[in-house]
């Protein structure tokens, strides 16, 4: 297993280089970011040239990339156009986003798997239909609206929570945003668990366990659920990355200045240091999450061994 993990970690190197290069090229293809710096007027050409020089945009693309890569190896992720260092931005944004993602994943695990097991065991019963209706609502109403309505009801109407999250983003204030963020993923987790549980409930080993007279709870937890979790775990693994980078809407509504927000701003302002820095860290998060998921496969199903 140790060798497998080391091999997987070594694979990060080509992925790192591939990602930085690809994202760097993509941001550069978008055009000249200095065009936006003077607002609704054209910068005079001399100033614009001076700005380009300041941000190394006057150099050939390959050279820009190498300068950037060289700086990364010295721990310097560059600066955004407003003079903020990207390392500082990441140090501020990632902890907040990790907390938010943590809350969302906890909701996915507790509510998603819970509802999935219940509906999987009671297919076609009223509770199954009820959860299906909720699923449809969550998919067809945009997060923007779910978030806004939650904010209005809990924050403004009933005053249970503050409508927006403070700068320090304490965990207690992230519960509502975390639920909103998790809502669409909840639909996936619930239905994946439901399908898996329903399928495995008819399998031989469950019948055997029932025939042996094992207590119902033990059958569900030890036999049924464990064997049903692989697709769910896979999904949650892919979702960690998606939640961290794609929480733009939720972060906006609750005024959380996390990764999604910074990444979005970076893209709109075409600040390649910001975008490349944030995406690279995100890709490393995917890789780690995927590695953990692969290791969990073996925990959940002993027949699976690391190749």
């Amino acid at each position, binding site marked *: 297993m140790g060798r497998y993990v080391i091999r997987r970690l070594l694979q990060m190197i080509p992925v790192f280089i591939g990602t930085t290069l690809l994202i760097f090229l993509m941001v550069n293809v978008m055009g000249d970011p200095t065009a936006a710096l003077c607002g609704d007027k054209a910068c005079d050409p001399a100033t614009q040239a001076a700005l380009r020089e300041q941000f190394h945009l006057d150099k050939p693309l390959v050279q820009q990339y190498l300068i950037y890569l060289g700086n990364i190896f010295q721990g310097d992720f560059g600066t955004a156009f407003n003079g903020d260092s990207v390392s500082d931005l990441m140090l501020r944004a990632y902890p907040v986003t990790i907390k938010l993602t943590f809350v969302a994943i906890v909701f996915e695990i507790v509510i998603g798997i819970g509802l999935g097991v219940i509906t999987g065991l009671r297919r076609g019963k009223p509770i199954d239909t009820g959860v299906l209706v909720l699923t449809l*609502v969550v998919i*067809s109403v945009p997060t923007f609206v779910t978030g806004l309505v939650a904010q209005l009801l809990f924050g403004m109407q009933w005053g249970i929570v503050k409508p927006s999250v403070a700068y320090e983003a304490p965990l207690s204030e992230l519960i509502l945003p975390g639920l909103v963020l998790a809502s669409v993923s909840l639909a996936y987790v619930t239905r994946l668990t439901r*399908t898996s549980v329903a*399928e495995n409930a008819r399998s031989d080993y469950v019948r055997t366990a029932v025939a042996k007279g094992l207590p119902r709870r033990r059958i569900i937890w030890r036999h049924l659920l464990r064997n049903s979790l692989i*697709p769910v775990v896979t999904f949650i693994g892919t979702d960690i990355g998606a939640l961290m*980078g794609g929480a733009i809407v939720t972060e906006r509504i609750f005024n959380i200045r996390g990764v999604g927000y910074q990444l979005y701003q970076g893209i709109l302002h075409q600040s390649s240091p910001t975008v490349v820095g944030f995406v690279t860290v995100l890709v490393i998060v995917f890789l780690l999450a995927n590695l953990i998921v692969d290791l969990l496969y073996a925990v959940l199903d002993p027949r699976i061994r690391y190749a």
Partner: protein
Amino acid sequence: MPEPVTPVTVEAQLTPGAPEGGGAEGPARSLWSDAWRSLRRNPVFIVSALIILFLVIVAIWPQLLASGDPNDCDLAHGQDTSSSGHPFGYDAQGCDVYTRTVYGARASITVGVCATAGVALLGGILGALAGFFGRWADALLSRVADIFFGIPVILGGLVLLSVVTSTTVWPVVGFIVLLGWPQISRIARGSVITVKENDYVHAARTLGASNSRILLRHILPNAIAPVIVVATIALGTYIALEATLSFLGVGLKPPAVSWGIDISNAAPYIRNAPHMLLYPAGALALTVLAFIMLGDAVRDALDPKLR
């Protein structure tokens, strides 16, 4: 104008992998024909097929249901609720919500169904190969998936779609497939990894079955359930994603009509004019419901334990 959705596209979505399984090998035919026989008798399938048929007809001939012009808007009626001749009321621009909901079906269903079919095929095949062969094939395909997964949708959209001048929905479909396959591929991979350790797979291998036969005959039917679940829910999110892209100016070119665009236009008015959101979101929910039911039925039909 987007090309009309033909029933054939839906059919392809309905039985993923059917052409390979049905055409290439003799014995495989019986599995799929078995499945088809049990499908036809399943009321869930019949209901979902009827809904989908209805939606497809609306997508092809919207004028059957609505006589107006979806882009004929009079601001004087902006946000008005239902009145005679305008059962769903008006949106913020004073367009008739009913007409727009009917006409929005074409773009939304084309994007949803085709992007889902593409993602499921591409992601499903690559994921199954990665899971089945393991080792370097897995390493290569999974790491490529990681890099693609790392591209932020907004950046990808602004870079790849802003250069497109086509006024059809196909660039959007292609874009969603390009960025969407890694998720399905991971689900398929995880599923195949579990299934390939089953006794019947080992038995088939010992009997000298070829790789393609094992994959198609033994693994695919047992591994497909999670892919179907994720794909049916993703269908709804892709329809919404089209709106995000259109809003950024890189999706469907104005004056396109789609549910996604109308939902995102209506979202800010949720407090004052919820009717603007209700109908397009309801249409989206109906579509997702039909495909979730269809997915359930197909999955049941493929499950040998049910026979």
